[in-house]
């Protein structure tokens, strides 16, 4: 019979919680750079939110991008970006939102098609008007907030409020740094990105809940043990599971990234980052932060739950 391989040996005792200051510093750097990227570079909103036109075309041979650019530059459509998309035969054309109402946008699509002619296969044409763009933006923000809120309430009901605070801090950390990454890389921020962020939220909280479950269990079991000891023990006990699930999810995501086609690649990339940061934050942020909230230990037992001397 196959002998199972233990990737995390039994009895592993890594003192994660002791490294919390380093982790907090690292996270502070990540978050500050996210703020910096967001304010200085801003997000590269896709047409879903900004409104505008996107066309994916395929030529019979290699597409000559400078030639297409020349052809379209005389149409007076404002900012037009053209880039190769996945293959040498494919190109993606992005056209900024045209002045005026929806009618002008429609006219622009027609102009481009007329100018480029039938030598191209129009694989995809997307147009989002200014009205819908604004609505999608609003809906996206509401959805993310709603997801955070419902998770917060659920954790609050299942655990004590202190846990729900820690979970939300960790979760916001993951979401914020993902948005920061998109600003840094100037990747297109579109509907799929919002979907990725919500899924990251789901994944990250999933990870945190598993560790918290163990923390709660151990808090009841070892009432006399110091908090940081309990935390270290809980993280180590769930470490094998955390790693296993991260790896299987990453395997699936890498498969989407490399084989799932160009459209899903950005989505997969956001998710890969999300899984990594989500795993990191459950261990290094979500649990250590419990040291700083007044955690209740068992019924009426408040002994030994103070913040350690050196942390006050």
């Amino acid at each position, binding site marked *: *019979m196959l002998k*199972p391989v233990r990737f995390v040996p039994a009895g592993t005792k890594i003192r994660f919680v002791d490294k919390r200051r380093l982790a907090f510093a690292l996270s502070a750097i990540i978050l500050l750079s996210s703020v910096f990227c967001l304010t200085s570079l801003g997000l590269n909103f896709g047409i879903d939110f900004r409104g505008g036109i996107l066309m994916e075309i395929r030529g019979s041979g290699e597409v000559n991008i400078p030639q297409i650019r020349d052809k379209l530059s005389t149409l007076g459509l404002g900012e037009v970006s053209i880039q190769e998309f996945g293959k040498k035969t494919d190109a993606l054309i992005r056209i900024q939102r045209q002045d005026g109402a*929806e009618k002008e946008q429609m006219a622009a699509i027609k102009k481009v098609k007329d100018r480029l002619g039938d030598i191209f296969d129009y694989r995809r044409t997307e147009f989002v*008007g200014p009205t819908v763009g604004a609505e999608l933006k609003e809906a996206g923000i509401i959805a993310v907030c709603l997801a955070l809120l419902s998770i917060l309430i659920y954790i609050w009901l299942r655990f004590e409020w202190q846990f729900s605070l820690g979970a939300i801090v960790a979760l916001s950390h993951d979401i914020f740094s993902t948005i920061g990454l998109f600003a840094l890389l100037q990747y297109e921020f579109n509907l799929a990105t919002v979907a990725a962020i919500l899924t990251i939220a789901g994944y990250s909280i999933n990870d945190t809940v598993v560790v918290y479950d163990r923390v709660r269990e151990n808090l009841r079991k070892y009432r006399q043990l110091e908090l940081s000891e309990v935390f270290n023990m809980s993280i180590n006990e769930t470490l094998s*599971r955390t790693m296993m699930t991260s790896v299987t999810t990453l395997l699936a995501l890498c498969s989407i990234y490399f084989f799932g*086609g160009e459209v899903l690649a950005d989505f997969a990339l956001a998710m890969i980052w999300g899984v990594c940061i989500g795993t990191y934050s459950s261990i290094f942020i979500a649990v250590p932060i419990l040291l700083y909230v007044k955690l209740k230990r068992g019924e009426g037992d408040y002994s030994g739950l103070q913040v350690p001397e050196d942390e006050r």
Partner: protein
Amino acid sequence: MLQFPAWKMTLVVAVCLIGILYAVPNFLKTEFGANLPNFAPGKRVSLGLDLQGGSYLLLKVDLDVVIKEYLEEISMEVRKKLRKARVGYSKLGSTGASVVVNIRQEKDFAKSKKLLDDVDPNCEIIFDANGSVKITPREDALNERKLLALQQSIEIVRRRIDETGVREPTIQRQGTDRILVQLPGVDDPERIKALLGQTAKMVFRLVDMSKSVSEAVTGRVPSGSELLAPLVESAGDPALYLVKKRVMVSGEHLIDAQATFQDGQPVVSFRFDTSGSKRFGKVTSENVNRPFAIILDNKVISAPVIREPILGGSGIISGSFTVKTANDLALLLRAGALPAPLTVLEERTVGPGLGFDSIEAGKLASVIGLCLVIVFMVIAYGLFGIFANVALFFNIVIILGALSALQATLTLPGIAGIVLTIGMAVDANVLIFERIREEVLLGRTPISAIDAGYKRALTTIIDSNLTTLFAAICLYSFGSGPIKGFAVTLAIGILTSMFTSIMLTRFLIVLWLRGKRPNSVPI
């Protein structure tokens, strides 16, 4: 642990079998599916437009126009009543959401109050001491009009699209003023957009012969007439027409229109209903040898001279038509006029090539992702990894079956959702197996360790899955089209994976325990 009640076994086997039954049609050739007996579920997963190719259009109905028309109707009625009673008035017109008029003389105040009180039962009417009258339609009356216009618009859009021969279009109302149109297989919606972009209100009006067009352009346009541009500018026709405002016959009375040929030229023939025929006959009898303008959306198609009375109720529209424009006009007239103009708010069109490529890429990514996870699970958990893999396989089968049975739409992000579920579905098993390992280390016997592993891991599994489910629900409520598809597969995947990774693996492990009676757990 060894007790696994018979009903649970039956349930596990039944769910897996039903899953297979519903999933199988997706792997059969279409011809084969047609020959299945009736009781067999023959439905396949319905593919979103981004996978099968097609066009998604979100249209807005400009309902302000409807309200404007309503107010115009009211002011016309007011004018008629006041004139009939010889009441002097001024400043009749509409401001925002009401019609206002000034009664000139104080002696007419009481009289006009009586007259206008019943101008429209759905209006609020306010008279003030200075003789100014404000008529405001009630909110519910306005809403009723708007709703009616929206419903009519949907009907007309449906008729127009049906006429173009698109297979299985979906036309749905969205919100209070929007229409969602989904056209599978349409990769160039330009023609449909052009057809939907016209209200296609056709009217017949007399040409004003009292002045020439050039006089009207330089001088004053006679009241009751207006200058209109031609629909198609061509060399032979005048650049403008001076046409009387009064509508003689309107397009509502048309019952048929067809594109045909007359003297080798494409024309459109039409036929009126009985009342339309009567009016058309009367007008043409009274105006022989005068030009009669045929007007579409305030543009003149042509203005032929009436040679003789047309009493049969049918006629021909000639103009600068090509075969295509004649066909389109006939189609628009047959389908009827839209009560209000439509604008395209959002368009997403995917060609069949990209759709096919996306499906292929999705399949490849799923298979490779699945293989990687399967291999990894066997390496990490050995025999138990195989149990988890069987559960994973059935999980995917049940997801496919559920998607087919519910006829939920599978989109490209939806495929990503399935692949992601492959990665996350094993999580429950990982939790259970890790727990079993711990219990074994504590010195429990195999059966008790496995039992404890399942029991202890359960709350954690439920907690962690429910939170992901919340995220999926938020995603569903926010998302449009493709993103909704992602949320659906993710949610279905969470539910099915909880079933397969808890119940099914347990079932397999019980069978194994009963058969082998092992002394140690190979985990």
